[in-house]
């Protein structure tokens, strides 16, 4: 799909792009909203809102059952979204796209399956010190249940994974390597091609947490040759409560079922049940149909922008933010990897990130303050928390300047 995407300068069109996002056009505490919490969740374009609204207004019915017209339309809409997602990440087959509630559920699905079937005492699961809690805790639980060990590859002081350490910690007993494509706390883009290659060479399966990458970088799961790739709809301009687990067919066919019940079965009797084919065997219960439809619209939105334009625009925003950060006394950027998406995690001398967050809010600027569900990352950098501004396609250079004007006020107040 990426080959079809147009290249153009998004910056020139950012005002018309902003028109598509109704939530951006409001004041907060009497100031124009400057939404810089996109790594937490992105805002939704009108096309996504309309898709969800249209579904409930015209097509709402349960899927994969019933012969009536609405049920058929609902099924078609949801399955069309699956096709769009398969195209977005270049999956080899639509059956390899499993709808989940989000990245967290996707990783839990895989971790649960590994704990049940593929991990045993003495086996190892390799993650990195850069991970979001969602790619730590499921593996801790899987290890607890199976007797496997959790092994953690270190990061350096720029916030890059130490590749030599990652390589060294891949062993004969490493059954799976699970790592993020992009760090949520710092914005680091990991060398996932290389990491996946190393893991495969060591005989380990590969899961990539793509939550922070999917809206910002083109993803080609066949080129990556990863076994699993997980992401959330709400971080890619889509609805909350819907996400995707991509899994190679050969893995999905071996992985034990996760949740069980309706929709995922073929036959049920009290002597036992047989399970549906992919992808439905991993989609127990009535799914988030409207969410899936909205996510399909979000894929369309991304395709319309084109990743070349998105990357260029977000890089320009980050470059301006970095330049202004350099001029700001007492400001320390946490996470200075050479390859980053538009994330600026920072601390200020003598000001706690929560105080920064509250002050910025009163300037209309929404940032995240806290540990970003990555407490081991905070520990590595010796800070309890950071403030984090994270950028998306609709942010502007002017908004970055509003952010830094507000930061100057914070500094003066606490000086």
């Amino acid at each position: 799909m990426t080959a079809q995407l147009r290249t153009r300068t998004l910056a020139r069109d950012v005002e018309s792009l902003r028109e598509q996002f109704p939530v951006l056009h409001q004041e907060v505490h009497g100031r124009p909203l400057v939404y810089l919490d996109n790594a937490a969740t992105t805002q939704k374009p009108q096309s996504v809102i309309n898709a969800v609204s249209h579904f409930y207004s015209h097509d709402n019915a349960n899927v994969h059952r019933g012969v009536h017209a609405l049920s058929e339309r609902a099924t078609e809409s949801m399955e069309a979204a699956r096709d769009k997602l398969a195209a977005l990440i270049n999956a080899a087959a639509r059956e390899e796209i499993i709808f989940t509630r989000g990245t967290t559920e996707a990783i839990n699905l895989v971790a649960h399956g590994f704990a049940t079937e593929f991990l045993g005492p003495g086996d190892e699961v390799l993650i990195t010190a850069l991970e979001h809690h969602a790619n730590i805790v499921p593996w801790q639980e899987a290890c607890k249940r199976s007797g496997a060990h959790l092994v953690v590859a270190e990061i350096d002081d720029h916030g890059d994974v130490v590749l030599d350490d990652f390589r060294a910690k891949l062993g004969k007993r490493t059954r799976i390597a699970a790592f993020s494509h992009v760090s949520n706390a710092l914005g680091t883009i990991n060398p996932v091609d290389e990491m996946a290659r190393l893991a495969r060479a060591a005989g380990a399966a590969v899961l990539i947490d793509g939550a922070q990458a999917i809206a910002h970088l083109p993803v080609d799961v066949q080129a990556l040759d990863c076994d699993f790739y997980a992401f959330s709809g709400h971080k890619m301009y889509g609805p909350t409560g819907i996400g995707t687990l991509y899994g190679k067919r050969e893995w999905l066919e071996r992985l034990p079922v996760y949740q069980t019940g309706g929709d995922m079965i073929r036959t049920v009797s009290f002597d036992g049940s047989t399970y549906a084919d992919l992808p439905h065997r991993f989609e127990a219960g009535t799914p988030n149909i409207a969410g899936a439809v909205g996510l399909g619209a979000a894929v369309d939105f991304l395709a319309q922008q084109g990743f070349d334009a998105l990357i260029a625009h977000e890089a320009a925003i980050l470059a301006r933010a970095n330049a202004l950060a350099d001029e700001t006394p007492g400001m320390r950027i946490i996470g200075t990897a050479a390859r980053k998406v538009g994330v600026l995690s920072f601390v200020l001398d003598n000001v706690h990130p929560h105080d920064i967050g509250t002050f910025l809010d009163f300037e209309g600027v929404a940032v995240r303050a806290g540990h970003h569900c990555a407490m081991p990352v905070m520990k590595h950098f010796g800070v309890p928390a950071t403030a984090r501004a994270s950028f998306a396609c609709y942010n502007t250079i002017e908004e970055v300047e509003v952010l830094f004007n507000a930061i100057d006020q914070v500094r003066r107040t606490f000086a």
Partner: protein
Amino acid sequence: MNPELRALYQEMILDHGKRPRHFGAPEHYTHKMDAYNPLCGDHLTLYATITDGEIKDLHFEGSGCAISVASASMMCEEAEGKQCDAADDLYHQFQDLVTGKAEAEGMSRLDVLAGVKAFPSRVKCATLAWHALDHVLTGKSEETVTTE
């Protein structure tokens, strides 16, 4: 500055946040209690010397936002020297003050923290040290207090 924000970050709060009183671990104490807010990483340790039902000494150390540090600092100033039951009353009054259940009156300097009630996400900052004090006063002294 916005008046609501000004009400939250009053001069006295900024002052106590920057230069907390009763700060640092004393050599001797009878009670020690950790207080931790995992959401923001604020981590305070409260040290109390209680004899004959009276708080003879109250100190704290740790790190946190301006609100949590100022609140801890002012709590130590106000509660030190009080009988335990009076300090416990103060704890409940303070809870009511920052959650908007009671008006700011008669709590002396602690009134300046009443602005917190307009910031639901910051109430936990203001009450962190107070939860530690409550645990000391009610004898739940073996655990770490968390606000989660």
